[in-house]
């Protein structure tokens, strides 16, 4: 069986949506196509009461996946106004359940680097961690995601800690990690069907384990994903 990039994106989105089944609230940062799709999916299929704190308003109801996190399409159908500042306060008060965070580098502890790295002494600048430092430290269940999986991204120890916290899950294009509280580190929870223990081991700087296969998206999920994103913008993340 072969998997297209779109199939892979769909697996990741479906996995993230299912993590929201019992979630009280969710926030996604900027530049987050996959979490956007996952939240819409979860709200439509599994958890209509899920509170979506978005950067542009409270409980948006967008029809389509836009090319920007702050697209007017999203703000147009909100239930109430919401300031980014208030979202941070919600998390600082310990009231934010799920937050989706991207990591340019992700280490075994679940720490993220979105700041910069030095490669052969040369600085390589990332955009910065946006709200991550606070949200990773204070949200109840941070879900980390990454569109790529290699040894420069999944590292033993990040060069700079932009955001420290314990991820509830880490969703990569090869597998899903969960946080092992006892060991204090990430362990593989499920492996996507197009990947394998061997591949993950090769492409991850820290030690990994074998694990069961990630369940596939349902027909219903795929149909909905295609409706929200008919042009397959979501693929970009994996390219």
């Amino acid at each position: 069986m072969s998997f297209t990039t779109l199939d892979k994106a769909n697996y990741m989105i479906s996995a993230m949506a299912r993590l929201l089944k019992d979630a009280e609230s969710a926030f996604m940062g900027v530049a987050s196509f996959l979490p956007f799709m996952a939240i819409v999916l979860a709200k439509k299929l599994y958890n209509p009461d899920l509170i979506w704190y978005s950067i542009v308003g409270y409980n948006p109801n967008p029809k389509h996946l836009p090319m920007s996190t702050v697209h007017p399409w999203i703000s147009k159908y909100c239930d109430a106004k919401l300031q980014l500042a208030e979202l941070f306060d919600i998390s600082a008060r310990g009231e934010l359940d799920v937050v989706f965070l991207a990591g340019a580098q992700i280490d075994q502890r679940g720490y993220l680097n979105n700041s910069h790295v030095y490669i052969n002494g040369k600085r390589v600048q990332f955009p910065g961690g946006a709200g991550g430092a606070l949200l990773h430290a204070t949200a109840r269940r941070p879900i980390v995601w990454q569109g790529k999986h290699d040894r420069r991204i999944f590292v033993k120890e990040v060069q700079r800690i932009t955001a420290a916290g314990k991820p509830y899950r880490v969703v990569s294009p090869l597998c899903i990690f969960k946080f092992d509280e006892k060991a204090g580190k990430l362990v593989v929870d499920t492996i996507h069907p197009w990947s394998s223990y061997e591949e993950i081991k090769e492409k991850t700087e820290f030690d990994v384990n074998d694990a069961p296969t990630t369940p596939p998206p349902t027909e219903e999920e795929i149909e909905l994903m295609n409706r929200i994103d008919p042009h397959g913008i979501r693929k970009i993340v994996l390219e």
Partner: protein
Amino acid sequence: MVVMSLEEAAELVKDGSLICLSGNLLYRIPAAFVRELARQEKKNLRVMKTAGGYDVDLLCGLGCAKEVIAGFVSFEAFGLAKNFRKAVEEGRVKYSENTCYTVIAALRAAAYGIPFIPIADISKSYFVKERGFKFVENPYGGGKVLTVPAIKPEFAIIHVQKADEDGNALIYGPWFEDVLMARAAEKIIITTEMIVPKEDLRRDIDAVWIPSYKVVAVVEVPKGAYPGACPPYYDPDFEMMEKYANLDEEGLKKHIWEVRP
């Protein structure tokens, strides 16, 4: 009445100023004003914002900025902010990295006229030390609390949908940090899609959250957020952003004269 031209308003901003820019990523950014700053070849600006994109990148790429105080600078789907990135990597611009939350905290402290404000403990993040954020003992017990010092921008530069000629300004839709930066800054420059009579603003009073008292300039600039969005009037121009994302310095120089205002 503080209505003036874009050129005059940009002249108020001197080299070395600390400026705060409205909007977020591609939403209600003061793009026309930023282009005018670049046309006037400002130098050594310190630019503050939670999440920048086109605006911050342009000021970095054209040598106007010496420091960026922000939590995020990127073009999202259109890739990294190339000119910002290059300027930081080459040491021409200092990226005083924050998290968006600490940018907000610093503005809050300035708005409230207090020297610092406590925040949640994010002390494992590398920039906490680099920025010099300090702990204080909680005087009510319970141990140490992390704090952020106030940062008071000289100018808040805010693009809005409507303003009156005194500078009372209305924002439809999300505010991002705009009202907060208006509170925190010494002076406010408003660029607006349209200048309207006071009576029109009053009819929409629940959206009029920037009072005129610190506004030093009101500039009517239709499409002033372009290539960003200014709802309900226009969406972002993604084609332009795709083109912009690939411009080198020469291209940028042309861009600020081609895209008017």
